[in-house]
């Protein structure tokens, strides 16, 4: 037995629904009869058709508070509608806005929230969540006893986005007064430009960690990533150290990647990092410490100095490519 109503927060950037949001809509369509997607801000026809294509049957577009943080806006509107519509479950992507919205909504409705969800299984009209604990080394199976709605924050790439077209009805609502959170305004947005494929979409990811020794050696990571048509990634340690911007971070607090191949250079393999990359199809690790945890999940491990091995790999790849 499935669920009758599931809500999903769908995030839109540059006129497109995020991949993580479509994964959730797709999962919701598998578990529930009626799937309602909530979008904050303007949603063009492309947004509506893509949500319908992956299984959303209703779309609620929230307008009116464009410069507010979308997570707070979504939580306020969802809280106001929950009593009337009575969704059994609400899915949020594990993004900045998703986590804000889930936290605010949880407190507004007095319902607990389960985060770091990596899978959901229907069980007798409710959902059992599999969520990653201890940096993803163990999986806990949890269910709510609090009554509907069950609030889940789901990690990206936990579900496949599968086309499942449904007819959709769209409703536009004004956000109205959202309380203290409504006074928070975004006054400017800055984009940190990167070339090449996006980190969480690239089929090849070359990532660097502390073992690179110094910040300027990250250029080697960028160079190999460029040669292989991939994206450069980084550990939290070197992001915190200011070597590269946060947008490069792979792991628990950064991006989740599932490329064809992940090349970990000078990365020891903290659990917080591995939870973001161990879904890669192939893993190559280069690290000078033979006991580094990264070798326990690598298909090919090279125990060696990354400052020597990496330039040699780059030269050899250049020769190959002519």
């Amino acid at each position, binding site marked *: 037995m499935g669920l009758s109503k599931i809500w999903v927060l769908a995030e839109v*950037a540059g006129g497109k629904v995020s991949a993580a949001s479509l994964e959730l809509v797709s999962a919701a369509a598998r578990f529930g009869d009626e799937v309602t997607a909530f979008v904050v801000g303007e949603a063009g026809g492309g947004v509506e058709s893509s949500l319908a294509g992956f299984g959303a049957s209703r779309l609620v577009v929230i307008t009116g508070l464009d410069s507010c943080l979308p*997570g*707070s806006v979504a*939580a306020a509107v969802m809280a106001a509608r929950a009593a009337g519509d009575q969704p059994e479950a609400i899915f949020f992507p594990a993004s*900045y806005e998703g*986590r*804000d919205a889930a*936290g*605010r909504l*949880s*407190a507004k409705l007095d319902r*607990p*929230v389960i*985060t*770091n969800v990596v899978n959901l299984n229907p069980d007798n009209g409710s959902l059992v969540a599999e969520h990653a604990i201890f940096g993803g*080394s163990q*999986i*806990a*199976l*949890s*269910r709510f006893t*609090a009554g509907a709605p069950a609030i889940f924050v789901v990690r990206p790439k936990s579900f496949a986005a599968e086309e499942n077209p449904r007819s959709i009805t769209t409703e536009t609502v004004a956000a109205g007064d959202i*309380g*203290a*959170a409504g*006074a*928070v305004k*975004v*006054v400017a*947005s*800055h*984009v*940190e430009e990167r070339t090449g494929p996006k980190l969480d979409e690239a089929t090849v990811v070359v990532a660097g960690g502390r073992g690179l020794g110094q910040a300027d050696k990250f250029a080697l990571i960028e160079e190999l990533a460029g040669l*292989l048509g991939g994206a450069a990634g980084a550990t939290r340690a070197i*992001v*915190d*150290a200011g070597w590269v911007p*946060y*947008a490069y971070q792979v792991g628990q*607090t950064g991006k989740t990647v599932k490329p*064809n*191949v992940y*090349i970990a250079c000078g990365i020891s393999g903290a659990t917080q990092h591995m939870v973001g990359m*161990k879904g890669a*199809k192939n893993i*190559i690790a280069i690290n000078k410490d033979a006991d580094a945890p990264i*070798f*326990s*999940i690598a*298909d*090919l*491990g*090279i*125990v*060696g100095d990354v400052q020597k*091995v990496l330039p040699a*790999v780059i030269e*050899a*790849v250049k020769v*190959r490519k002519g």
Partner: protein
Amino acid sequence: MKIAVCVKQIPDPASPQKLDASYNLARDGKLIMDESDSYGVEMALQLVDASGSGEVVVFSMAPRSEMSGIRNALAMGAHRGVLVSDDALAGSDALSTAKVLAKAIGREPFDLVIAGTESSDGYTGTLPVQVAELLGFASVTFAKKVQVDGGSLKVERQTEAGYDEVVSPLPAVVTVTAGVVEPRYPSFKGIMGAKSKPVETLGIGDLGLTAAEVGKTGAREEISEVREAEARAAGTVVVDEGDAFNKVVEYLEQIKVI
């Protein structure tokens, strides 16, 4: 300006984490201040310094009147601490913990509440906004730069693509990322001085909460099973003798990346 900082006292991440018989994180050993909270403490100290006057008050919820993490924050320079410790709190989830901290913080006026983006042991990442909602405060999460200008908070907030400049009135809750500031090490004088700084210890009754609202009962979620995540088998490990780069290139050829 008066700032509340939420500090979690966690099992030392250097020793392996485990669950107890009721699937709660085992907290029977020594607890220390979560390193990711040291950024919030430092941020609060700098903001109070910049404003010329004020106070940094550390809030924590922990079993067995655990205070070592609070003492650490006091040694860094925080002025006093408030600890909520009660047997009824065992098994609390993020929302119950947020209720406890919001009640404790709400007993006096604050301009700002600072927390980490998520703890290093449970990493639920929802508690700060839950506290904000319960207190009726504005919130700005994932701050990589924080300034207070008059009555207004200016934050550079991380986004998928880069960062946003965000302004908020006070009072507000702000969560800071690691790397927002460089946390100071407590000085010897600071460590000695921390021992005589006041730490108030409260039970849930002092906050007007009942056992049904918190702890395992209040969590209203149950873990039915815990299992090892699907393990990846380790592959070949080669010690570099100067030619291991060839192995990498061969592997990339084999999977048709080059």
